[in-house]
């Protein structure tokens, strides 16, 4: 028999309604032997008592239900975002608050580059917090006129580049006629590039090529460090291409001693038929290990709200922008759902606009009527603008939702003022309505779009504060308990992993978040500030101080 270790803690929040709070948890073989009082657990036989968490609070390891491991890769570039943000090594980069700050930070990084042709890449720029001050190619030329420079916006939908980058792409010329490439008074591109069509030809010259959503080895290792810092023990990688090469890299990395994260990558439904996609993930599923769970599909119905590419129902965008784009037409989604339901493969579907949500629900209702699958747990991801009727429909159809709670903090003011207007901005990411309609719910960061951090995400759902400090959607606030459930059991449920993860309960994986304060006792406004000491993953201990 292998050794049993019993951890004591100041408090253990279990998410098990039969014993919501306990004092001890016993671990054997990486799994939870039991939770309860020390007396309850002593009956399992010999044990070693570990009191290192005597002044800490344990909760189930947090589960990020919608993020992208590319956040780990992006940290090799220069962070120029408005908000303070912590990198994989624990350094907190203060927010860059002015154009001068941004240029100074880029210049500092530029000075450290050896090869004069190596591109300089920045990320997470967001001019909306700086009175929409535009960054021109001339601004970036002041950092370097000879080295290509590109700075990606936080939304991922805009890229700013310098003159050298435009020149390398052959675009530093008059007469460029493209809706995504504004021209300056001199008739030349200003250096702002809107949308993937305009970004792609220049992106390759500034370190943002088309494969950038695929994480590499170092990126995955760095992403896992970010997870430990956030108390996350399981994370999705929600839109991976999962080439043979990247799957073998992920199998290798996740099998290494000391790798602290369970990764759940979803194969994105692009570039292959529904039949090929389903067959491929069924093949991949056979390769799954405890720390790499393969076999799910992500579909993308539409674009993004702030990029005006989300599909909206009437009356459309508040500023009158034309309706967005279908990324996957209804016919293809229908075929995918039918084949995947028949094969027992789960599909998560990105919808941002309410028309995209409606389309997915309509198509799914038909598919599931033809191919009943009582425990499908098909999940709508983002689902930001769904109304009560749509949540009611999702509840009846047995669907789950993963709402983008961070969004109304980071872009809520923009949605209120510009994209969808006050009324719909108030109901965006309607967590309370979803729960009232009995829709199993998770909430997410979509890292790197917003920073990984489920406690922050929970805070955002509880308080619904925007970046400017307004409360947006009082009626959609949820309780701290509901939010903590969403980032543990809620997310586990959307992945069919609720039998293994999400609570501290006999038989489950020994995955804990170790925090310095009791998130259920602190002021709700302080939830995001509860310090994370580290994690326990499969019984292995990962303090942030030793990453």
């Amino acid at each position, binding site marked *: 028999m292998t050794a049993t270790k019993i951890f004591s803690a100041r408090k253990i929040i279990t998410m098990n309604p039969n014993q919501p709070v306990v004092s001890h948890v016993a671990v054997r073989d990486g799994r939870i032997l039991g939770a309860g009082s020390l007396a309850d657990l002593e009956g399992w036989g010999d044990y070693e008592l570990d009191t290192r968490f005597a002044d800490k609070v344990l909760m189930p390891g947090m589960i990020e239900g919608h993020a992208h491991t590319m956040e780990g890769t992006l940290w090799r570039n220069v962070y120029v975002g408005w908000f303070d943000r912590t990198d994989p090594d624990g350094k907190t980069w203060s927010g860059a608050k002015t154009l001068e700050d941004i240029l100074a930070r880029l210049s500092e990084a530029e000075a450290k580059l050896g090869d004069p042709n190596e591109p300089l890449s920045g990320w997470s720029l967001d001019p909306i917090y700086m009175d929409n001050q535009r960054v021109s190619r001339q601004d970036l030329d002041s950092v370097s006129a000879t080295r290509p420079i590109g700075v990606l916006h936080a939304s991922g939908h805009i890229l700013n580049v310098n003159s050298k980058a435009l020149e390398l*792409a*052959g*675009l530093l010329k008059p007469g*460029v*006629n*493209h*809706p*995504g*490439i504004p021209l300056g008074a001199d008739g030349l591109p200003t250096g702002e590039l809107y949308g993937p*069509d*305009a970004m*792609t*030809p220049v992106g390759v010259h500034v370190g943002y090529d*088309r494969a950038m959503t695929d994480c590499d080895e170092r990126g995955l290792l760095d992403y896992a460090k970010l997870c430990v810092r956030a108390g996350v023990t399981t994370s999705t990688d929600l839109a991976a291409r999962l080439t043979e090469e990247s799957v073998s890299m992920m199998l290798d990395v996740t099998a290494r001693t000391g790798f602290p994260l369970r990764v759940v990558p979803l194969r994105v439904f*692009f*570039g*292959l*038929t*529904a*039949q*090929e996609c389903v067959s491929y993930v069924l093949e991949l599923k056979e390769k799954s290990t405890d720390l790499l769970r393969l076999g799910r599909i992500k579909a993308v119905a539409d674009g993004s709200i702030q990029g005006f590419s989300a*599909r909206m129902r009437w009356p459309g965008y508040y500023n009158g922008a034309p*309706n967005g*784009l*279908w*990324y*996957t*037409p*209804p*016919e*293809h989604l229908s075929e995918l759902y039918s084949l995947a339901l028949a094969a027992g493969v789960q599909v998560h579907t990105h919808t941002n606009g309410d*028309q995209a949500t409606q*389309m997915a629900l309509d198509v799914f209702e038909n598919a599931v009527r033809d191919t009943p699958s009582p425990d499908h747990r098909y999940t709508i991801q983002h689902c930001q603008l769904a109304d009560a009727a749509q949540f009611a429909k999702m509840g009846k159809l047995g669907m789950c939702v993963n709402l983008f709670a961070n969004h109304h903090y980071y872009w809520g003011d923009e949605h209120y003022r510009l994209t969808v207007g006050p009324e719909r901005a108030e109901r965006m990411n309607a967590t309370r309505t979803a729960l009232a309609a009995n829709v199993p719910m998770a909430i997410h960061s979509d890292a790197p779009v917003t920073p990984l951090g489920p406690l922050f995400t929970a805070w955002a759902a509880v308080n619904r504060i925007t970046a400017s400090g307004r409360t947006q959607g009082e009626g959609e606030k949820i309780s701290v308990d509901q939010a903590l459930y969403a980032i543990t059991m809620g997310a586990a449920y959307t992945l069919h992993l609720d039998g293994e993860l999400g609570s501290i309960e006999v038989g489950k994986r020994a995955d804990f978040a170790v925090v310095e304060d009791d998130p259920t006792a602190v002021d709700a406004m302080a939830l995001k500030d509860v310090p994370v000491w580290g994690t326990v993953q499969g019984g292995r201990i990962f303090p942030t101080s030793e990453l």
Partner: protein
Amino acid sequence: MNPANPPASSDTAPTASPLPITVIGGYLGAGKTTLVNHLLRNAQGRRLAVLVNEFGSIAIDEDLIEAEEDGLISIAGGCICCSFGNDLIGAIEDLRAVKPAPDHIIVETSGVALPGAVVASLALMDHIRPDGIVVLVDGETVIKQSRDDYIGDTITRQLLDAEIVVINKRDLISDSTAATLTSALTDLAPSAVQIEASFGTVPLNAVLGAVAVPAQGSVASGGHSDGLFESIAFTPDHPHDVPALAEQLATGPLGVVRAKGYIAGKDGDIWLLQTVGKRWQAERLDHHPTTQLVCIGPKGQLATDEIRSLVQPTL
């Protein structure tokens, strides 16, 4: 990429001229793939490079395929075909390494793509020249589709971009339905000329322009596989106000779907004249190719006499 090997060309344009790209759009089921197969089967010696976006295996008729390697399908007659997934620009860059270089690129977009946006992006590339937006519609279903809550605006935005609308599956609709459809499409696709087809049998020259020039003065329907199209060719010696001529050919009710030629201008230079649908282009050249002009249009609609007197007023 090898700059020492500029794209060859089967027409008389100088070899340094950019590679023409025709974009074929239209919603799922409109018949884009059938049209592409038809073009490959009737390429008339031109080396076509077909880039398809539709999901999955490329649906090229098996009997056309000579070889398949690294995702590149070789077709009888020197044509090639590959899938570009989400990376059209990259796929076109890759084509530059293909030898012998293709004469013409055809891009078959996804069913939800807006072909005008695709062309705007392609136009950012230096060594290619957008050569027409062809949008296919399913004659049986397009009106219903254009009113659909989900896809209606995708259909209408595709049609707004069109320079040539191919009303496909004509065999499945009655003459009166076709008349109603033609009138509706005149509103939905105001910059396009309409041509009818069944099973995607549209002549290569109507889709691609850049026509190989036949013998002078001939009116030919040969080479137009279904006999629905005809063309008229000239060696015009009369100097023209070339932009004005181009505009008349494109927008006058002359039944011209495409025209291309080298025309002497009143300024003494030779101009390249091209029309696609109702759009036209006239460009002064710095060299002097032999003057020639070819116009193509639906048989019976191509106003050959009017075109002749326009182009050769002294004859």
